[in-house]
């Protein structure tokens, strides 16, 4: 997903869930910020490197794909953009190495989605926004893994776009170009993707790189054969997925506000809340274009009657940079960084506990002594735990 959904659509969902304009702005800012909080950004503002929620393209080129490098990449991409669906999938007749990769495949309504939402319960608006980013991406990025892997994320030439014409879906052969400067040509179904690399762990095989931006476009429907699918065809219906993502975000945020009971339930959606706007939402989601920001923005402003400012990366930087060391965690960015570390910690621990080494080792403070104490103290503080006990 991109700015149109993570920023403007998240604003709309937050407002429909009952947050006011200012709160919705903070939530959607944080949701979009997940795509921009790189180590380079953190280096610039002097933030903690472990709070990185994304990697810039050139950081990726620079990233080593040895074990440590792979774990660093996986911690970021699996925690925030490709949440694993089933870390204990009982796939048979495969080597452990293959199973580890297979179990990283992202999908919606996995147990970790509930853990992600619950982690934000009672926390800051930044934590809510971050959780909404992760939740929404489980719909857009389903069937891809947040770790470099050819055997999972690769695709074949078998690719067809399904275009609605006179109430029927027509097939059109979809083509890819590898020129990173080229733009997606939606009129002729020519899209940009990463080049085929036969090496398993190259960053070119991370996430949905091999199908380019297709998962980020809300209007598109296509069918293809994923590398992991054993020659079974998969139909990806983005409009349906995006509608579900929106309805689930509204439900999740209502839950976080205490309006939906005391347990977050998977496969539950706020269809009743969005019912009056369903045609409008359908129209925004299904219109063919590369960026739906304008329509989402207009919808959000109609809902709240207030202006939604454009996303500004520098908005909270000065506040963080100029804050005293002991007050940094109380700034907007500080709150986001804590939420990011907590999310990364939770997902890394889940992956590690499943005996999968791809995200690295999650150390238990009580067993391993002082290693990791810096992060541990931050998380203790974030969780409101008493350090003296």
């Amino acid at each position, binding site marked *: 997903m991109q700015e149109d959904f993570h920023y403007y659509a998240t604003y709309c969902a937050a407002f429909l869930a009952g947050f006011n304009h200012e709160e919705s702005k903070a939530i959607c800012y944080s949701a979009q910020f997940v795509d921009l909080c*790189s180590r*380079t950004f953190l280096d*610039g503002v002097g933030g903690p490197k472990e709070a990185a929620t994304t990697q810039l393209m*050139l950081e990726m*080129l620079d990233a080593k794909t040895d074990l*440590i490098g792979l774990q660093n990449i996986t911690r970021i991409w699996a925690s925030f953009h490709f949440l694993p669906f089933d870390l204990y999938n009982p796939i048979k007749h495969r080597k452990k190495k293959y199973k580890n990769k297979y179990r990283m495949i992202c999908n919606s309504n996995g147990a970790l989605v509930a853990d992600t939402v619950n982690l934000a319960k009672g926390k800051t608006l930044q934590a809510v926004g971050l959780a909404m980013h992760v939740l929404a991406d489980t719909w857009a990025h389903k069937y891809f893994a947040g770790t470099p892997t050819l055997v999972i994320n690769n*695709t074949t030439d078998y690719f067809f776009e399904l275009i609605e014409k006179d109430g029927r879906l027509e097939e059109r052969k979809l083509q890819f170009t590898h020129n990173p400067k080229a733009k997606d040509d939606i009129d002729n179904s020519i899209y940009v993707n990463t080049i085929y690399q*036969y090496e398993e762990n190259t960053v070119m095989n991370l996430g949905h790189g091999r199908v380019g931006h297709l998962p980020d476009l809300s209007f598109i429907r296509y069918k293809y054969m994923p590398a992991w699918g054993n020659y079974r065809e998969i139909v990806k219906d983005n409009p349906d997925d995006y509608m579900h993502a929106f309805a689930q975000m509204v439900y999740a945020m209502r839950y976080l506000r205490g309006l939906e009971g005391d347990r977050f339930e998977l496969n539950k959606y706020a269809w009743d809340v969005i019912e009056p706007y369903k045609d409008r939402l359908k129209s925004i989601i299904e219109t063919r274009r590369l960026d739906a920001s304008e329509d989402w923005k207009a919808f959000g402003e109609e809902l709240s009657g207030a202006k939604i400012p454009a996303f500004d990366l520098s908005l909270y930087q000065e506040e963080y940079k100029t804050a005293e060391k002991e007050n940094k965690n109380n700034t907007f960015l500080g709150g986001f960084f804590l939420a990011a570390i907590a999310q990364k910690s939770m997902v890394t621990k889940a992956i590690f506990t499943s005996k999968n080494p791809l995200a*690295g080792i999650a150390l238990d403070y009580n067993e391993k002594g002082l290693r*990791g104490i810096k992060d541990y103290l931050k998380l203790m503080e974030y969780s409101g735990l008493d350090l003296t006990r």
Partner: protein
Amino acid sequence: MSRFQKIKNLIKGLIVILFGLLVIGLVYYEGPDDGLEVIIFILAAALILRGMGVLHFYSTMARHMVGGQQVLYVGFVIFCFGLLTMSIHNLHPSFLIGYLFVLYAFTGGVDVAGALSARKNGAKHWRLKLVFGILTIIFGLLAAVAGFIYKSTGVIALIYGVGVIISGCAMIKNVFTKTEVVYIQ
């Protein structure tokens, strides 16, 4: 980096430096032709090992993948190319010149692009990377100039040897550099 990884990388770095010194030593004491033969041997051995690695990858992982046969073919081609290179006694220098130039230009280009991007995004540490990137490109140009203009196989072998030694030193430096590993609970 774990202790095992550190020891492994240290040994790897020392072996690489040894190869580099061997190339330079042969150029000085036995003449450039012997140096070139060592380079050919290294290239061929690397290709054979790489081919075997790809074939192993196919047998354990890629055979379960849709379109995985492509990996099998790639593995065979690299392996056979390695055997072919091993059997050649008088490799044309232009092959090595091209190899060195592409290698250094690409590595340097990535470093320069990364440094400029880091600078654009407000990062503090980008100058050293930029300097290393530019130096690497200059090194690649020197190899090309020596090869294509002066047609000096001795200088090519020397540049290759120095490049190998620098790679080995970088490996060893990484062993002793504090790796930024994030420990999270």
